[in-house]
């Protein structure tokens, strides 16, 4: 009941921003692998020409959602449609509409850039002349024109990823799925790929769904962001609204630099009533989410009482990182290295979290 209201409200907000029609409709989509639920009854809509981000740690179920929507995996339960076509019953219609940039490079190392694109293009029955022209255009678009006849195996990671993206654009898809498009790229290539994604969206009105575990990426690219944790969408909103969740009200985000940081100090700070979460960023830095007017004083007092030598205190503007921490009670990392136990998780979570 609660969850439906939540979705309805986010939809209403979305429509204020974009008055486009719904391109992707997901209802109770679920995927189970041998009893393990990877995706758990998720529902959301994506409008035409929107950039929609799925943000979450590794193993949250992002890739499985993408694979289901791109017809590569069948859902165990629930339905979804793209451009009005059902992803299971009308899968070949859906395939005409979509392009997929997978986490793995979809490319044959022993073939040249052109041969690769021609091979995949032919699978879409694109007429020969149109295809040749499109291959040249796309290669030029990502500055790979002069590498046309080189084998993809000799390309750098950045070049390969650019190839990977244009491969998905061969059929001029209405919907483009990008699964971790900047994973493993250097900062320069990352920026290039992001700019390119924006450009495609702007110029072709392509609807884009991208997954990422990087907050900055989601923040820069996406119109709306769905935060995914344990196979569920816990929150779905625009980046700005998500941040308001944290900074709104009386939340304070503090960054303390304490060179002589001890476990005892961390425990003492965590024990405070006003503190919602503490994360230790490195040997000397603590990031603290707290509420209430007294929060600042109490934290400093608790630290000083434990003989902490405080070098600096920063009052931070919330980032998406903080939003994630605030919503899920933990950082965006692999589940395995989630070391610091979060106290009082249930204290604030239920309101935001869709279960």
């Amino acid at each position, binding site marked *: 009941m609660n969850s439906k209201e939540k979705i309805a409200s986010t939809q209403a907000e979305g429509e204020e921003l974009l008055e486009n029609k719904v391109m992707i409709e997901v209802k109770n989509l679920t995927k189970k692998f041998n009893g393990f639920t990877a995706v758990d009854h998720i529902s959301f809509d994506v409008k035409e020409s929107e950039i929609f981000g799925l943000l979450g740690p590794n193993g949250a179920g992002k890739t499985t959602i993408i694979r289901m929507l791109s017809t590569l995996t069948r859902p165990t339960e629930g339905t979804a449609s793209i451009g009005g076509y059902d992803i299971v019953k009308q899968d070949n219609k859906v395939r005409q509409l979509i392009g997929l940039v997978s986490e793995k490079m979809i*490319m044959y190392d*022993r073939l040249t850039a052109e*041969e690769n694109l021609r091979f995949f293009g032919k699978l879409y029955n694109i007429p020969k002349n149109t295809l040749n022209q499109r291959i040249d255009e796309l290669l030029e678009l990502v500055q790979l024109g002069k590498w046309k006849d080189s084998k993809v195996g000799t390309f750098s990671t950045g070049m390969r990823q650019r190839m990977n993206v244009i*491969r998905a654009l061969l059929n001029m898809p209405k919907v483009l799925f990008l699964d971790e498009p900047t994973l493993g790229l250097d900062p320069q290539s990352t920026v290039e790929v992001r700019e390119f994604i924006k450009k495609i969206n702007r110029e072709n009105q392509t609807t884009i769904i991208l997954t990422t575990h990087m907050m900055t990426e989601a923040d820069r690219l996406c119109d709306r962001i769905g935060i995914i944790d344990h196979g569920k969408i816990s929150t779905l909103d625009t980046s700005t609204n998500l941040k308001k969740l944290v900074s709104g009200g009386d939340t304070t985000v503090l960054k303390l630099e304490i060179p002589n940081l001890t476990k005892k100090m961390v425990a003492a700070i965590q024990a405070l009533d006003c503190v919602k979460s503490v994360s230790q960023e490195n040997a000397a830095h603590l990031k603290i989410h707290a509420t209430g007017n007294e929060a600042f004083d109490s934290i400093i007092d608790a630290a000083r009482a434990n003989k902490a030598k405080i070098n600096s205190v920063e009052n931070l503007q919330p980032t998406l990182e903080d939003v994630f921490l605030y919503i899920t009670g933990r950082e965006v990392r692999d589940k395995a290295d989630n070391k610091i136990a979060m106290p009082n998780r249930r204290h604030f979570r239920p309101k935001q979290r869709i279960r």
Partner: protein
Amino acid sequence: MIRMGAKTMISHSLRIAWKDLMELFRNRMGLVLLILMPIFMMTMVGFIYPSETSLNSVPIALVNEDAGFGNYSLSSTFIMTLNSINENTGMITITDASNLDDVREMIQTGDAEGGIIISSDFTSNIMSGKQGTVTIVTDESNPQMSAMIQAVLGQVFEQMGTMLAQQNVQGLGVDANTSLAVVKPYNVQTKGSIEGEFSYFDFIAPGIMAMTVMMSVMTGLPAAISQEREVGTLDGMMVAPINRLSVILGKTLAQMARGILQGTLILVLAVTLFGVTVHGNILLVFALLLLGVFSFVGLGVVLTSFAKDQETAVMMMTTIMFPMMFLSGVFFPVEQMPWFMQSISKVLPLTYVADALRKVMVLGADIPAITTELSILIVFGVVMTAIAVPVFKRAMTR
């Protein structure tokens, strides 16, 4: 509409097959191995199982110590007969030596594989009613050689004896033409169902050809598909609006081309290097190979669908290929096996491919002569494909 669908499916399959072959030909190392494998296979099997005719020009040292009897020497008749028999078979090359020590030294240095010594009293003993002695010096490390020399000597003495007896009966007034029938009334001849010599290699070559082609497709197909799945490129094909079957069909075509290439290579080697002659229709040989692949491919596809990664796929294939290799009568005749193995052999498609191929290549059989094998293979193929198609479709959208 359906015909259109079939047409695009075929064209997509050809695209995929062409892409696979292009990848194959760009892989130099793989290509070299692809060609080396059948060459190794053929030369190994060919030389490990030598046919009798393959023993030729074995160097033998000959010591003639015979002093003769007056001016009459039987040893020269002996050497003459030996030479005339050898002219036909070409099995040995004779080198002269002076004495036993000389022969031993030659064997040790490898200049000779064995020796024959005619004793000094050879002629005199025979003429005086005693036995003439011929000693064979053998290399103990090579028992096969000693057996061969004994067989040759046996022939020489038999022929000499026959000649002597013929002379004797001719002396009794029998004419030269019938003298042989009087001395040796029985003559045993071996004849196969076809003309010409039939060696072990003739038996084994069709089987090896069938096996290589099958093995190529059987191991190649699951490996190729699971490799693409692992690398991620399979998703690229699956996300395109193509029939799922084009992927499997295209891959099969590529593997088939690879297998047939190897099969042809084997055939060429068998004919040029080991003197195998194809008695039947060569087109029928290739048609049989293709039918063989068809009967197998379903099994390969089913296994592909179950294998999670390339390693598992290859291991699965090897596990199945090994018993199939030995039980399908490729190397050993099925009739030699115990009954339970014979029954296993009867359910292996390779048995029928090898059988039919052997009949066509060695016996020159045509289609009516191999209808049993053909129908079994077709049934096998249809049943396996009927199982494989839905299994594969399911596995692709797990």
